């Protein structure tokens, strides 16, 4: 620790020097903790008084987020967001991770753990609102909500925008090996996932909601359809596809596409960019015909005991510098106008991260939660599709097994019979 402080102290004169030479980091200069902050990037907070309300009370909040979904200062030069929050407010952050929306739901529904800030996705937010698992946010405590772009307010999952503050967003597209697949990018559509030429080279989502969405896009249905005949039609499409699918995967896509084991896979834009960095042969395209847009937003569970501190945390996450540090680190798209402005031009114009707003408005659909019946129907169809056997093995599997069991029973009975006879003598 001492060495770090020494280094920080040594770095301070250089910082002063850079101030003299005309760099515009002037606002941070009168912060008392300036030396320590200069280790990472400089941080500007508009209203420090707002954050000092709970100082010295020994409060702590529990934050439950996706894995690898915050700037944690692990790489050199990145900001430790939670650390900065603790320093600024004196509120301790207990930070834990989950891997799926359903895991988060199971935790909250079970009621065993109390969390103050969670970051679920769109359809899960509407499900939680319906079941009363999240509580309305007092937006007076979140002045930074003003930075959230118009396009990301009052969306279908939270129509009055009373429960959630958008954190990141992204679209679903297709990762493909452009060295093998010789189709111009603009001609690639979802039906490539049904193309027999690439049999056994196609990966597919291993969760029903995302997989059905693709089938529904092909059929031209709404992504939030609850109509059981439409769901059945989509399931029929997926069953057709099963024959040429190499595997149903989620995060394994990183290895399988990165290592060249498959040619085509649908996936989320942010993760796709990470995969593309490792393998030059791969390209990513969001089909022009439309796609699913997902939004992860910050919510406060009903079981939260530190609501105001949680709101303070959410507001902190919406500080321009913090929002930028996060988005810079996790590669997803940001709904935060100031953070967007800070991005470099190349990213701002990237059709993958930031497709033009007309496309976003007209061609993308955000999931909302389906009714229990529709969810159940989808789950049943999905299980049925996944467990369907190949035609030829289905015929003999069950009978052979039954015969085997019967033979085994007969054998055991005969054996016992002989044994009992022997025991008489």
């Amino acid at each position, binding site marked *: 620790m001492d060495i770090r402080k020494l280094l920080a102290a040594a770095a301070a004169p250089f910082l002063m020097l850079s101030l003299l030479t005309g760099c515009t980091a002037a606002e941070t200069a009168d912060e008392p903790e300036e030396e320590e902050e200069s280790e990472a990037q400089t941080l500007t907070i508009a209203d420090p008084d707002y954050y000092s309300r709970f100082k010295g009370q020994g409060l702590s909040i529990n934050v439950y987020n996706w894995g690898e979904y915050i700037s944690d200062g692990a790489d050199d030069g990145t900001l430790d967001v939670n650390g900065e929050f603790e320093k600024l407010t004196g509120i301790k952050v207990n930070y834990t991770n989950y891997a799926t929306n359903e895991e988060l739901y199971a935790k909250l529904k079970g009621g065993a753990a109390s969390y103050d800030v969670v970051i679920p996705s769109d359809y899960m937010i509407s499900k939680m609102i319906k079941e009363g698992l999240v509580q309305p946010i007092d937006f007076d405590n979140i002045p930074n909500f003003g930075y959230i772009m118009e396009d990301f307010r009052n969306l279908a999952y939270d129509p009055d925008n009373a429960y959630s503050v958008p954190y990141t967003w992204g679209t679903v597209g297709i990762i493909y090996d452009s060295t093998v697949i010789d189709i111009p990018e603009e001609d690639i559509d979802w039906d490539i996932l049904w193309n027999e030429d690439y049999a056994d080279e196609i990966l597919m989502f291993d969760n029903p*909601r995302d997989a059905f969405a693709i089938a529904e896009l092909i059929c031209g249905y709404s992504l939030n359809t609850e109509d059981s005949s439409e769901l059945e039609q989509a399931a029929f499409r997926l069953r057709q596809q099963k024959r040429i699918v*190499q595997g149903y995967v989620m995060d394994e896509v990183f290895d399988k596409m990165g290592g060249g*084991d498959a040619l085509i896979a649908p996936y989320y834009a942010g993760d796709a960019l990470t995969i593309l960095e490792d393998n030059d042969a791969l390209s990513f395209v969001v089909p022009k015909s439309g796609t699913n847009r997902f939004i992860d937003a910050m919510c406060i569970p009903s079981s939260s005991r530190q609501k105001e501190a949680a709101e303070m945390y959410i507001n902190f996450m919406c500080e321009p510098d913090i929002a930028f540090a996060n988005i810079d680190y996790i590669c997803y798209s940001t709904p935060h106008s100031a953070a967007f402005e800070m991005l470099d031009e190349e990213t701002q114009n990237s059709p993958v991260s930031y497709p033009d707003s007309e496309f976003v408005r007209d061609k993308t659909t955000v999931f909302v939660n389906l009714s229990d019946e529709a969810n159940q129907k989808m789950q049943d169809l999905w299980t049925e599709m996944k467990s369907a056997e190949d035609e030829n093995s289905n015929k003999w599997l069950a009978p052979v097994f039954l015969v085997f069991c019967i033979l085994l029973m007969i054998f055991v009975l005969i054996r016992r019979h002989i044994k009992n006879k022997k025991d008489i003598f």
Partner: protein
Amino acid sequence: MKLKYLSSPYLVWMVVFILVPLLMIAYFAFTTDSGSLTIKYLSDVGQYANIFVRSIWLALIATVICLIIAYPVAFILSRMDKHRQGTMLMIVMLPMWMNFLLRTYAWMTLLANNGIINHLLALAGLGPVKLINTSGAVVLGMVYNYLPFMILPLYSVMEKIDGSLFEAASDLGCSSSQTLFRVIIPLSMPGITSGVTMVFVPAISTFIISRMLGGGSNLLIGDLIEMQFLGNSYNPHLGAAISLVLMVIILVIMTVMNQFDPDDQVLM
């Protein structure tokens, strides 16, 4: 008499972490969300019959293969010099020192379409063979991961068989196959039953092997149960009902297995 109290820590452990969860599973399986009694979820399990059959079938194949591989190994092992036995046992145990997931992950890269095995086949002039994402790959994963659980109990039983029994058998005119079937196998029966139990039970309820090596299209009961808790349809009642049915099936199979045991020991 006082000795009885020494077992109380385990008794408490058993009640809190085995008995209570079992009762909770039963409770969940027979009730709805609102708490009223129902057998709806149990009868719903019927529609997954083909998944049950496949799980039992694959676990059975894996168990039989394990037994066929492990039996001669265990026998040879038990007849070795004492100090060499130690080394060989260590080699058997060696893979178990590595994380289970890591080992299965390694198979993923070996079996992949662009994996090492297919590269070697290509060198030999053979076309690429579809290895991963088949039920064969799932069985391979089961055999690989659970083989030590078959070898160890077999070895510990065979080690206790007195070598002079084989001499006596051949003195009395037994051929080597007769020695095998009338002396070695009957004497090693307890090892076979416990080995089969230790391989079959984890194999039937595995889910990560089928996910990683089966490519998600070879659904097993374990996957089905996991889907009820962490999948898209959160339905702990159905999940509990499936677990309950699985438990009963295993119970029945184990009862049948124990009929082979000459001492009629209960091994569950």
